[in-house]
C-alpha cells in the first residue's frame, strides 16, 4: 500500500496481544474495544484479552443482527456492530456549561471537559474514514468543538483490517475500505498465530518499540493479504455513487420519497448508529428554584419532528421530508459542506433500521427512474 506512511511490518504472536493492552493501560490509556454484551458486539472498556469477543461473530441483514459462535477462536472475526467510536469522541450527553445565580448576578462556568485518554482497539477501515469525516465537522471548520477536540487529540488508534464482511457492508463502493490505509497509530491483521502489525504514526512507532514484536515472515504477509482479500470478496452490497450529489438534488420530488415515507418510522435509529451523523440539540435545564441551571448537549436527529421546529412550527412536517433530508444530506449536501461524502458504507443504518430500510436500495430506485419526475421546462420560461 503506497499510501501507508511507514512501511515496516511486524508480527505480534497471538499470546502477546495482552501485552499491547497492558502497555496502553500502564501508559494511562483507557482501552476501549469490542466486547460481547446484550446479544451483540459492542464497544466498551477492555481490561484484558478476556473482554474481547474471542470466538464470536455475527450475521447481519436489513433489520437483523445475530451473534454467532465461530469455529475458531479469532479475537476480531466479526464486523461493525451497533456502537461506533463516536460515542467516545462525541458523547451522547455532555454538560457544556453551568450557571448559578449569585447576589451579583449569574455565575457561568464551562462544563467539565477532562475526558480519559482513550485507546481505541479494533477500529475498522470504514470507521477510520468516519472519524476523518467527523474531524472535518468538529475540528476543521470555522468552529472547533472543545468536547470533541479534547477526546480526539489524545486518542490512540489501533486499527484492525477486516478479514470478512457482513452482507450490509459496502465500503468498497464508498472507497473507504476494507483495507486500513491511514488514520491509525497501529494497524493489525489477525492470523491464527498472531497479528501482522503496521505502524502508522510516530506514536505508533514508539509503542511498537515496547512490544515483543518480531519481523513478519513472508508467509505471514502473504496469509494476511489473502485474509484481507477474503473481506473484499465477501462484499456483496454496492452503491453506484456516480454523480450521486446531482442525482439526489435533481430528484427532490421523486415519488420514491413518498414510497420510503410509507415504510420509515422516523425512529432515528439510522442516524444514531451512523458513525458520521453529528446532529445534536442543546437545552437548558434548571432546578425548581431557578437558581441552578446547566446547558446540556444531547444527540438528536433530523428524523425528530421538533428538530426543525422554528417560528411556531416544524419545517419538515412529514416523514417524507425528513427521510429526504437525511439521505440528501448524507450523500449530497455533505459534499458542499465538508467536501466529502457523509456516508462511509459501514451498513449500520441498514442493519439497525427496525424495518430494514436500505439506503443503497433507495438510491438505486431513484437512479433507475432518474429524471422522470423533473418538472418539464416550460417553453414560456424564456
Amino acid at each position, binding site marked *: 500500500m503506497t499510501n501507508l506512511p511507514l512501511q515496516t511490518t511486524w508480527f505480534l504472536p497471538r499470546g502477546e496481544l495482552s501485552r499491547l493492552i497492558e502497555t496502553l493501560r500502564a501508559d494511562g490509556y483507557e482501552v476501549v474495544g469490542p466486547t460481547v454484551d446484550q446479544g451483540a458486539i459492542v464497544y466498551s472498556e477492555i481490561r484484558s484479552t478476556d473482554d474481547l469477543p474471542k470466538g464470536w461473530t455475527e450475521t447481519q441483514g436489513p433489520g437483523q443482527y445475530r451473534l454467532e459462535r465461530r469455529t475458531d477462536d479469532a479475537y476480531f472475526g466479526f464486523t461493525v456492530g451497533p456502537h461506533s467510536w463516536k460515542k467516545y469522541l462525541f458523547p451522547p450527553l455532555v454538560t457544556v456549561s453551568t450557571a448559578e445565580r449569585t447576589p451579583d448576578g449569574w455565575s457561568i462556568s464551562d462544563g467539565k471537559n477532562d475526558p480519559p485518554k482513550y485507546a481505541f482497539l479494533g477500529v475498522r477501515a470504514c470507521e477510520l474514514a468516519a472519524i476523518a469525516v467527523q474531524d472535518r465537522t468538529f475540528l476543521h471548520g470555522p468552529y472547533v468543538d472543545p468536547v470533541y477536540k479534547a477526546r480526539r487529540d489524545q486518542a490512540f488508534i489501533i486499527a484492525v483490517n477486516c478479514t470478512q464482511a457482513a452482507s450490509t457492508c459496502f465500503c468498497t463502493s464508498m472507497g473507504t475500505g476494507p483495507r486500513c490505509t491511514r488514520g491509525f497509530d497501529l494497524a493489525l491483521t489477525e492470523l491464527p498465530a498472531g497479528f501482522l502489525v503496521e505502524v502508522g504514526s510516530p506514536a505508533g512507532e514508539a509503542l511498537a518499540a515496547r512490544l515483543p514484536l518480531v519481523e513478519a515472515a513472508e508467509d505471514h504477509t502473504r496469509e494476511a493479504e489473502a485474509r484481507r482479500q477474503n473481506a473484499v470478496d465477501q462484499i456483496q452490497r454496492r452503491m453506484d455513487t456516480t454523480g450521486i450529489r446531482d442525482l439526489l438534488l435533481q430528484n427532490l420530488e421523486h415519488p420514491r420519497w413518498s414510497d420510503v415515507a410509507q415504510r420509515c418510522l422516523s425512529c432515528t*435509529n439510522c442516524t444514531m448508529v451512523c458513525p458520521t451523523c453529528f446532529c445534536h440539540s442543546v437545552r437548558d435545564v434548571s432546578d425548581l428554584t431557578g437558581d441552578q441551571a446547566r446547558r446540556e448537549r444531547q444527540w438528536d436527529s433530523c428524523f425528530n419532528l421538533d428538530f426543525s421546529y422554528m417560528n411556531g412550527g416544524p419545517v419538515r412536517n412529514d416523514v417524507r421530508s425528513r427521510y429526504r433530508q437525511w439521505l440528501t444530506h448524507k450523500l449530497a449536501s455533505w459534499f458542499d459542506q465538508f467536501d466529502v461524502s457523509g456516508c462511509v458504507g459501514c451498513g449500520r443504518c441498514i442493519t439497525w433500521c*427496525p424495518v430494514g430500510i436500505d439506503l443503497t436500495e433507495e438510491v438505486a430506485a431513484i437512479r433507475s427512474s432518474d429524471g422522470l419526475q423533473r418538472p418539464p421546462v416550460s417553453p414560456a420560461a424564456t
Partner: protein
Amino acid sequence: MSGKPRLAVFKFASCDGCQLSLLDAEDELLAIAGAVEIAYFLEASSRVLPGPYDVTLVEGSITTPHDAERIQEVRRQSKFLMTIGACATSGGIQALRNWASSEEYLRAVYARPEYIRTLSTSTAIADHVKVDFELRGCPINHHQLVEVLSSLIAGRTPRTPNHSVCLDCKRRGTVCVTVAQGIPCIGPVTHAGCGALCPHFDRGCYGCYGPAAQANPSSLNDWWMQHGHAPQQLVPLMRNFNGYAPSFRSESERLERMAATSHSSDQVGGNDK
C-alpha cells in the same frame, strides 16, 4: 392569600399511580410545596380549598356519567389544566372496554349490577374539555412532572420530547432488542419519556407513553407480519395502556380486520386440502 400559584390535583378513573409519582419526587417535593399553594390534593392532604386554581393536574379517564359532569366543573375552576398519565390522556388500560360490552362485564363482576351507573366507554379528558398540556406515561415520569411544574412556575414552555423511545435506547447504548434478538418492540412508534427502560432490561417496549409524534405503526406491524407474526398476535401490542390513542387504535383495528380476513382465507385454504 399568598402570591404563589394554586395547585390542584383531581382524580378520575385511574390507579393513583401518577399522583404517587408526584409524591415520589422526594428530592423536589419540598421545593414544589414551597413554590406553590397546594389547594386541592386529596392523595397528599385532607385540606380542601375551593377554586379557582392556577394549575390543575388531572389523573384518570372518564368512565361514569357523574365524572363526565365533574370534569366540566374542574375545567371551569382551572386556569391551566394538564392531564397526567395514560388514563387521562388516552383513556388508559380501562379503554379496552371500548371494544367490549360493558353490560356483560357488569353482569359478570357485580352481584347487583343495577346499582352501577357507568358509561360504555373510557375516554380521554380531552374528549370532554379543553386540555392545555398532556403529560404522557403509565405512570408519568416524575422528573418530567417536575420539569413541567418548574417551567410553569418560571413562566417558560415545558419541554417533554415527543420523539421515539429508540433515540433514548441509542443515547444510553442499549442494543436494539428487535434487531439483535427478534423481540417485537413498539419503541419505534412510542413517545419517549421513560428513558428506554424496558429495552434496557431486555424487554420490548409496552408503549406506556403512547404514540410518538407522527407515528407509523402500520409499517412496523407490516414488517413483523412479513417476519412470521400473525396480525392477531400483534393486536395486544397496540392495545395496551394507550390502546385508545388514535394512532394505536386505528392500527389495532386494522390488524383485527386483517386477522379476520386471513382467518377466513385460512379456512378456505383448509377446505381446499
